[in-house]
Each structure stands twice: as structure tokens, then as C-alpha cells.
């Protein structure tokens, strides 16, 4: 097992589109028989092995080399500042990370802006880049509510359509980042398992760039 390239798949919103993309790249992930599945399983061709993980855990596994490669959103990747290769932007899971605030209120300038987010490091970098000082409240659950209840003046979070924000009486103040899923690769794996890793990169790169617009 140690010598087959081990790839982390993100559980959740990227799982379906991610495995579909791998399928188009000729790396077929068989559907789990009657819902039961081993923790680690091979693709149909037996060249790779896969392990589904919570997205936030994937960069750490890949950076450490415990897992050779993975699919993960750039939101999580930037937040963890993992030192890995990012050879392919997969063009799936596209959304925006934005700064949002309750409609009709002006954000306090300077002084003491309180921002609730699941992405404290990204948020800190964003405001540091603007040379603004913020107090960050790190949350794991819904952050809109933090702003509505007054725990924070604003939030930094992902939006796809912006509908949830509007329904909650909030508006987008500014874009923080464009988010999309990336293929990430461990630096040593690129050298030590070069042939299989490069095959993976080439196949995915070809699918992504020869069939634009087919994802999402």
C-alpha cells in the first residue's frame, strides 16, 4: 500500500464533483457497494488508492506526506497555509469568499471592527493587506447569525449565489478571494512517486482544460 499513490477525497460538497472529474480523467472510483466502504479503497484500475476525509484535514495530511495528494478547496488550503504543490486548479466547487455585513449599517472605520469567520488566518491576512485592524471571532457553525445577533459587525464567509445572505438581511461589502478546488500534491511524493503523480496531474489537467464549462 505504501507504494501506491494515496489520494484524499473531500467529504461533503466537493465529493460528487471531485470523483466525477476523476472519472472523466480515466480514474474510476467504483460506487460503494450497499453503502458500506472501506476507509481506503482503490480505483477501478488499481493504480491509485483513495481515502475520504473531512476537507479541513486534507492539507495537513498531504503536507506531512502521510497522504500523497488530495482534492481540496482553496479556501481551506489558504487558511491552513500548507506547503504543498498545487498543480491543477480543478475548476469545480467555485464560489466567492466575501466580507459581508448587515444591510443598512455602516461598518465602523478604523478602531474596532469585529469579524466572525471560519477562516481566521485568511481574514487576518485580508485586513492586514488593507492595513486595517480587526478583532476576529473564530466560529465553526453558521457565521451569518453571529453578525445578526451582534457578536460581530461583519463576517467573512463563502457565498455561492448570495441568496442566504440576502434572506438574512445582509449584503456583500467586498470580495476576499475566489475559491475553487485544487489538486494538491506532497513535495516528496512528486519526486518519489513521480510517474503515477504526473499521470494524475496530466490526466486531470487535460480534462479540466479540454472540456471547459462542463464542470459545475
Amino acid at each position: 500500500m505504501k507504494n501506491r499513490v494515496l489520494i484524499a477525497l473531500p467529504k461533503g460538497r466537493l465529493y460528487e464533483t471531485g470523483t466525477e472529474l476523476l472519472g472523466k480523467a480515466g480514474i474510476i472510483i467504483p460506487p460503494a457497494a450497499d453503502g458500506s466502504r472501506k476507509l481506503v479503497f482503490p480505483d477501478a484500475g488499481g493504480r491509485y488508492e483513495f481515502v475520504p476525509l473531512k476537507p479541513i484535514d486534507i492539507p495537513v495530511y498531504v503536507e506531512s506526506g502521510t497522504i500523497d495528494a488530495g482534492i481540496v478547496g482553496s479556501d481551506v488550503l489558504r487558511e491552513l497555509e500548507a506547503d504543498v504543490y498545487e498543480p491543477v486548479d480543478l475548476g469545480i466547487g467555485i464560489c466567492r469568499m466575501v466580507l459581508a455585513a448587515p444591510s443598512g449599517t455602516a461598518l465602523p472605520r478604523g478602531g474596532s471592527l469585529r469579524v466572525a469567520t471560519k477562516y481566521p488566518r485568511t481574514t487576518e491576512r485580508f485586513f492586514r493587506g488593507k492595513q486595517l485592524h480587526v478583532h476576529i471571532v473564530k466560529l465553526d457553525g453558521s457565521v451569518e447569525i453571529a453578525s445578526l445577533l451582534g457578536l460581530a459587525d461583519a463576517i467573512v464567509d463563502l457565498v455561492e449565489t448570495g441568496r442566504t445572505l440576502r434572506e438574512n438581511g445582509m449584503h456583500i461589502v467586498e470580495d476576499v478571494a475566489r475559491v475553487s478546488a485544487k489538486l494538491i500534491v506532497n513535495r516528496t511524493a512528486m519526486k518519489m512517486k513521480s510517474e503515477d503523480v504526473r499521470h494524475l496531474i496530466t490526466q486531470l489537467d487535460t480534462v479540466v482544460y479540454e472540456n471547459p464549462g462542463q464542470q459545475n
Partner: protein
Amino acid sequence: MDGKIVGLPAGYRDFIFSDAESRRRIENEFASVFSSRGFREVIPSAVEYLDLYARGNQGVRERAMRFLDRDDNLLALRADFTPAVARIVSAHFREMPPPIRVWYSGPVFRKTDRHRGQYQEFSQIGAELIGGDPPAADGEVLDVALQCLSRSGFPDACVHVNHAGIFRGLVNSLGLKQSDLSEVRSAIDRKDMRALGVRLEELGVNGSVRAQVNTLSHTVGDSRALAAAASSIDNQESREAIASLESLALRLPRWRDRITFDLTEIDEMEYYTGVMFTFLSPAHSVEVGRGGRYDSLMREFGVDLPAVGFSFSMDRLGECE
């Protein structure tokens, strides 16, 4: 009993009996190779002025464990050996005719990110050859490193070699300004070749140079792969750097099967000035050490001597045993 008496702080560990013995055994093998090749040991102080790390690799300075002495001087636990070696050479060997061959072994301390399972104390063993010129000194140091690995239980260990001049030559021919350059470096470092291509095009870099950047980012292999890369590169500095890698390998026929030319990795910190080494253990799929030529670092300490060296992670070597 109180956890602070019998416990250990996060990021530290003990090596007990067999773990300690395997590290000691590796160190002894290295030491005997070093001494047979004319390298003498230095044991630098475990505490330095933090300012020692103001030069060279900036990541080291940021991660150094710092504290104040009684006169409020800002000090740090040893965070890297190479600056300490440079300091020692500058202080004690100014009058000595080069080359100077030293080796070292011991712990270094760096702050790590919380909860990533990384240790804040780790052990390095390595050597530096100061005041030796490129082809001969590079070959000697690489030979010593591979001999150390071979003797200490890593007979299949291999090295990926690169040369900072290859990328530097290409980048100089791009004619980019500093801020764009660091963006380009970082895209190359992430290996995001599509984004890099788009960005280089936006910056007005012509198609032929973009193709060369792409070639470098894919060149891994034997001397044929290196020759193929050489034929696609058109600037003088890169070509000379590639030629010097070829001649380095020719000097070490006994290690021919262990040397892979790998032009894909760039030195984002711009620490190295010539050859760069990455040592790998294929059996364990891990990197065990790094090295290379850094001709400008010694100058920062007032000694104008070229230098080449390497450093292995004792922790990785010990785990692979």
C-alpha cells in the same frame, strides 16, 4: 503528580534506549566518514544573538525561539547550524588558508504551527566546506554526503540535484520587476503551471521564454533529460549552470545511479547560489536532507569565501532505520 513535573511540553520528546541507540549509531557512522575525509567537528553554542538569523533564510528568524538575557539582549536558541558555522569561521578562521572543512551534529529549535504534529526541537547532522570552488568542492561534498548515507544504513539513498543559476538565468531574461517576480516565483513553487502561463503572458513575457519555464518545470531524469533541457534554453547563465551539473555528475561515476537531475524545484528563499541537493530515501519515500552552495552567506559575516554544505534530519534518519 503534577503534569508539569512528569509531562513534557507540546512539541518535544525523549529518545529512550533503542531510539537513542539508533541515533547514536548513525551519528557515529557519519562521524567516521567525516573524519576520514578531513572534516573536523564544531559544537556551536546552543544560544545565539537573534540577529545572527537576520541574514540568510528569513523563515528561520521568524521561527527562532527567542528570549532576553539579563541585559535585555534578544537571544535565540540555535535555530540553524549554517549561520553559526559562518560566525565561527568569521571569528576564528579568518587567517587560516582555505578550504576549511567542518561538521556538526545537534539539536535546533524552531517554533512550529500549533497542532500540526510537528516537533519544535529537531536534530541535524551536516557538513560545510568553506573556501572551495565549484566543480571540485561540490563534488567532494556530494560524495561525502552519499558515503555517509550509504554507510549508515541507507544504501539506496539518492539525490536530486539542481542549480540555482538555471532558474536565475531564465528569470533575469524575463525582465520583470521585483514584485511581479516574487509572484512568479511563488506560482512556480506551487507548480501551478496554467496560472503561471497566464500570468507570464499578462506580464508580456514572450512565448519562447514561457516554453522554457515550462520545460524546466518538467525536467526530471538522467543526463539525457538534462541535455534535452539544455538544448531548449537560450540564455548563457542557465546553460552554464546546466553544464556545471553535468560535470558534477561526471566527477562522481560511482554514484551515477543515485543522481537524478531535477530542475523542477526552485529555491524560493534565494539562499543557494549554485548547486542544490535534495537527499531522498526511496525505501521510505521521504526526504532526509538538503544542501547546496551558498556563496553569499559568508560575505554577510565579513568573510568573502564560497561555501557548500549539506544537512540531514537526524529525526528522519532515525525513523527510517
